[in-house]
């Protein structure tokens, strides 16, 4: 897996890449690795969907990317600096530039909507401003504008846990808008809302992200949404990338292999086959990582 990205890196250079992963792995205790050997270059402004069955390692990958979970091995390079070597101050500075949206919102339910939105500013505010804002909200105009952008202008003073799931996800989106991050990560942002709402939220996320020139990495359960709204689609299974394509290049066979129960082809055998099969082409225009099942070669 290390060959192809190395090539693409040589072609695209480092400055265009906001995020580079090299052989990133995470293992919990003695279990099978949740994420193994992921190598990936993400250019500024790309919108990437990560799809795959549950248990594929999407959430683990996501938590490593937003610097909540240290990898077991491999490296993450954000905007040119390897995050493993950062001290506490620099770590906070990098985290400030990465916005996160979660499946279960991860908002503080007992706070008012406005404080949850304003908590996007906590990376920038000194402590005294954070404290003051709880009593006398600061940057109220920005919070209101962010809520308007996600269609919740009238919920500013509502208690957050009084909102519906879909509305809470919009609050989480507004928080990320206020954070003004360069890279926005979303982990199954619509897995717990109904399909129509899911469509709306993903569209909102991609539209707002594009308008502001943000890089987007979104993991999704729903293949249709991934193919419709994103410029690049990654397939993740058993902690490994099975394909890395433009949406129009994703074939039914790839999806069948990704979601199919045919674990005969899964895991090691696929990887062993990988080196000879991978076409080394530049990202993101070309299908890079798709491997046909072992029996087909």
């Amino acid at each position: 897996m290390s060959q192809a990205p190395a090539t693409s890196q040589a072609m695209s250079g480092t400055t265009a890449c906001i995020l580079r992963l090299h052989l990133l792995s995470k293992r919990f205790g003695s279990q099978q690795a949740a994420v193994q050997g992921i190598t990936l270059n993400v250019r500024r402004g790309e919108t990437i969907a990560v799809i795959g069955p549950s248990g594929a390692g999407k959430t683990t990958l996501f938590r490593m990317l937003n610097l909540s979970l240290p990898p077991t091995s491999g490296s993450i390079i954000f905007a040119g600096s390897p995050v493993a070597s950062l001290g506490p101050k620099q770590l906070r500075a990098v985290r400030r530039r990465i916005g996160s949206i979660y499946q279960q919102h991860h908002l503080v339910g007992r706070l008012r909507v406005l404080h949850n939105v304003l908590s996007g500013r906590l990376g920038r505010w000194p402590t005294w401003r954070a404290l003051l804002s709880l009593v006398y909200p600061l940057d109220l105009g920005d919070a209101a504008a962010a809520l308007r952008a996600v269609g919740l202008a009238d919920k500013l003073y509502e208690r957050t846990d009084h909102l519906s799931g879909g509305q809470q996800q919009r609050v989480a989106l507004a928080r990320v808008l206020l954070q003004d991050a360069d890279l926005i990560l979303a982990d199954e942002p619509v897995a717990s809302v109904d399909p129509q709402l899911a469509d709306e939220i993903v569209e909102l996320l991609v539209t707002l992200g594009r308008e502001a020139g943000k890089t987007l990495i979104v993991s999704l359960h729903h293949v249709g949404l991934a193919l419709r709204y994103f410029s690049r689609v990654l397939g993740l299974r058993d902690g490994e990338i099975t394909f890395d394509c433009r949406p129009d290049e994703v074939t039914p066979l790839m999806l069948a292999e990704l979601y199919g129960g045919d674990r005969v082809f899964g895991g090691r055998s696929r990887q062993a086959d990988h080196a000879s099969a991978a076409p080394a082409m530049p990202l993101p225009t070309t299908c890079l990582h798709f491997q046909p099942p072992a029996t087909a070669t």
Partner: protein
Amino acid sequence: MGASQAAPSQKFFTSNTAALPPSAPARAWWTWLLALGVAALIWWSFRGVGVDLGMLLGSESRRQMLSYLLDLYPPDLTSATVRSALWGSIETLAISLMGTLLAVLIALLMVGGASRALTTSGVLFTMPGAGRGRRLTLLGLSLLARGILNILRAIPELIWALIFILAVGLGPFAGVLALGVHTGGVLGKLYAETVESLDPQPLEALQATGAGKVAIFLYGMLPQAAPHFLAYGLYRWEVNIRAAAILGFVGAGGLGKQMYVSLSLFHHHQLLTQLLALFVLVTFVDAVSTWLRRRLS
């Protein structure tokens, strides 16, 4: 409960004997050792305190208790006694209230250092980030804070009252300080443990925005923990109203001081009036506190 009801369940169990679940794994040997140790401790304590039910319920002691109780009746309802009992009750209420408030203040000041969630472990410490020196400083701070709380808690209110009477003289102020300091030790530990058991996900989300620890405490921990903090505070207020009455015996004012005087001078009827006042006061505080705590949950 008749035979007709027992029959089907009997059949259910007999017909399933073939599929009996595996027997539970044997308990570790130390579990039995622990149980034996606890039993020995209880036996030893029973012997050690010289439990003698004969002495408590024997005819001579029964007669003495009864005559003493009969001596108390009737309560002294002259306006001077009632007025001073009322005044004493108000003073005891004030001591318990101020003492509990002081305790909450101490606990809030100490919780940052005493809680492992803010100093050594948990979701805020998953990334290596901090250097060795910083980690050791935090560990030292945490041990110091918990040590101080242990000392505050280990010394009973009564001893604190004697110490504070030496410092600030006889009177309610010494009672407030004694209650506040001891209860501060109790609440500090409870608060620290509460913070350690909060839902970590919103905290991880706040950290991912680049927020510092104090900001995470203010926006993530405090809102989640506030109802628990309040409930513990109210419960300790119930305890402290009784403790405040006792403190009067060593000169810390209130109803307790009056009861001590009445007891010493054999003013039995006044004592009964004061006991009734205390009963009303304790019932009142318990009711208010229970009502408030129920509203919180």
